């Protein structure tokens, strides 16, 4: 999960300007939390409320967090996934209630599926955090744009904007009404919230919602990459720093599609060399190939220069480079082994 804003983020939370803000950098929580409740909140979406695990002794409360914060959930499978906290906040803009919402992603790397299939009330989960890369900065007016599960970080932001008496509105899109989580919670806000399922309304009317550049407004957007791209394009003429986004997946053009930590080992057969390697998540295919003693050209190791381009004989490539075009990716016959991996867990390379 990455977030950015064009200006340096002001981490001072709204409504607590005078209060000392607890900083948790380097002192974040890492341990187990108990699933206090599990609820299905939309088609394919479950929310989990987490509570301190009592273990043998006295339970310490989970750390406070502010809108925009997320936690890591470390699954027994070794997969780590990030989820925004979306529990209710108090008048000071804080919350101790850790609630996350998890969308089942059948084409993901298995993290969300595992949670859907295995996590029940009373179970313990290994968690880390919270961390906040997407803080809500003070403003007179907020325009929130949420797509699908991207609504989660916006929920507490909306609560805080409301508590601070700011003007705000939310444009919330999803595939269908039934797939959109937290609609009952949002219903209480009345006309400030525009719920726009795609099967009824088509693509979100960003122009109508965002209107002309407004220097007094901040735009917060979270959702699928195409939505964020569209909002970025739309806000290109807005004052620098107006737009703040958080991507659940890195930009399609570069970097891992699902967060580097959310990885599985993959198996790579080097047919010409007659060997098969198991490549752990922390190692690139390139490094693994080099360590196996197979010489291969490489240079930038960022998926840009194309030096390490390698013919693919079998297996589906999870392309993470910046160089290949969509057509070249779709052909699935070549890959940049410095950054790209396998979708099905196995690749056969002509090396």
């Amino acid at each position, binding site marked *: 999960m990455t977030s950015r804003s064009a200006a340096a983020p002001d981490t001072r939370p709204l409504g607590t300007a005078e209060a000392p803000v607890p900083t948790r950098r380097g002192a974040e929580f890492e341990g187990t939390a108990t699933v206090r409740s599990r609820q299905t909140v939309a088609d394919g979406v479950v929310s989990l409320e987490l509570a301190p695990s009592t273990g043998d002794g006295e339970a310490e409360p989970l750390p406070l967090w502010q809108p925009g914060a997320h936690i890591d959930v470390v699954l027994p499978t070794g997969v780590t996934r990030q989820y925004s906290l979306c529990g209710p906040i108090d008048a000071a803009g804080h919350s101790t209630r850790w609630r996350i919402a998890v969308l089942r992603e059948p084409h993901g790397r298995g993290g969300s599926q595992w949670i859907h299939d295995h996590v029940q009330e009373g179970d313990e989960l290994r968690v880390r955090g919270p961390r906040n890369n997407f803080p809500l900065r003070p403003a007179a007016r907020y325009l929130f744009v949420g797509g699908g599960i991207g609504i989660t970080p916006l929920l507490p932001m909306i609560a805080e904007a409301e508590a601070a008496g700011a003007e705000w509105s939310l444009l919330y899109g999803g595939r269908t009404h039934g797939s959109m989580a937290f609609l009952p919670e949002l219903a209480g806000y009345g006309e400030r919230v525009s719920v726009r399922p795609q099967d009824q309304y088509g693509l979100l009317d960003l122009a109508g919602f965002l209107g002309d550049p407004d220097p007094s407004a901040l735009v917060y957007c979270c959702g699928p990459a195409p939505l964020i791209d569209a909002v970025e394009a739309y806000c290109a003429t807005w004052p620098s720093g107006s737009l703040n986004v958080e991507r659940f997946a890195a930009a399609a053009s570069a970097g891992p599609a699902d967060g580097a930590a959310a990885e599985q080992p993959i198996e790579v057969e080097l047919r010409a060399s007659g060997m098969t390697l198991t490549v752990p998540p922390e190692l690139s295919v390139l490094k693994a190939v080099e360590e196996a003693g197979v010489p291969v050209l490489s240079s930038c190791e960022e998926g840009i220069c194309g030096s390490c381009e390698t013919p693919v004989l079998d297996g589906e490539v999870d392309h993470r480079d*910046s*160089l290949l075009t969509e057509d070249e990716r779709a052909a699935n016959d070549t890959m940049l082994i410095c950054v790209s991996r396998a979708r099905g867990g196995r690749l056969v390379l002509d090396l």
Partner: protein
Amino acid sequence: MTLTQYVRNGWYLGAWSDEIGRTLTQRWITDIPVCFYRLPDQTVTAVEDRCPHRKYPLSLGHLNDEGTLQCDYHGYRFDGQGVCVGVAEQADRPKAALRRFPLVERDGAIWIWPGDPDLADESLLPDTSWLTDPGWTHVHGVVPLKARHMLLLENLLDLTHETFLHPTTIGNAAVAATPIDVTVDGDRVSFSRHMIGIEAPPFYEKSCGLTSPVDRWQDGDFYPPGIFILNIRVAATGTEEPEGFHMKVLYGLTPARGNETHDFYALGRDYLIDDQELTKFQHEQQLAVMQEDVYALEAQEVMYATDPGGKAESSIKSDLAALRGRRAVAKMLAREQREQHEQSEQQGARIPRSRTASV
């Protein structure tokens, strides 16, 4: 980069119209010597500049008033279609013909297709109507470059170098600081870079009479293997782009022979088109900027030529358009070589002895 062979199935800028007349003009294109001339009806012709008799350059011969081309070694004569119509020594007409290249003369430019004539498709040429549009004026020419054309291609597809190589004319920090968007449409590679509220580089300040800050747009389109067109728009910050100043730069990146390139250029503008002084200033600046590139590319060529199996290059994000351009050309070349290979396999048994015999 090991690309030393040239794509031939593609359009290259062979000459400007005003360069070619009744005088025979030799110009090497993709390692082929080409002789350009005009027939009496003013149509332009390009033939391989080797007499089929003993390969003497036809461009050292004569063109008579009827449009007959005569080799000045043993007197082979060719008509406007390149067919041999006689030779001084004997009454029998030798069965020989010159290889003629598909040409398109349009908007003051002569485009040549050095490859398979059956594949020459005029619709692949980009729009160059601004070269003759009465609302525009332009200057043009050709600069010799002792460097392979891929280096020029990469130079043009990554204008980030303006910041460093052309700091006193067209570049400043804003260029390198603004990322580019890159798109690929079929073989064509395009990039765009929009610089908003930047300091105007000196060339634009003087060319447009603008003071900073300005908005500046750069949109480049590379039509592989050898045509590049840059659209430049400059406007006072906050004004609408159509109100601004528009310029276009066309580059014909035409491989000559070995690692030498013809660097054709045309610089056009759609404002103050009668201002001769501005035209002179822009032409001088264009040549000065190109000279800076020539110095750099020729220095770079030496480094590539002396490091043929060298280490892979390091690349950064702003190289993306150039790397895509490189791939586009490499793919065209691979496709062409594959087709040639298949053709020669099919015709293998029928290759005449004379073509396989060594001289």
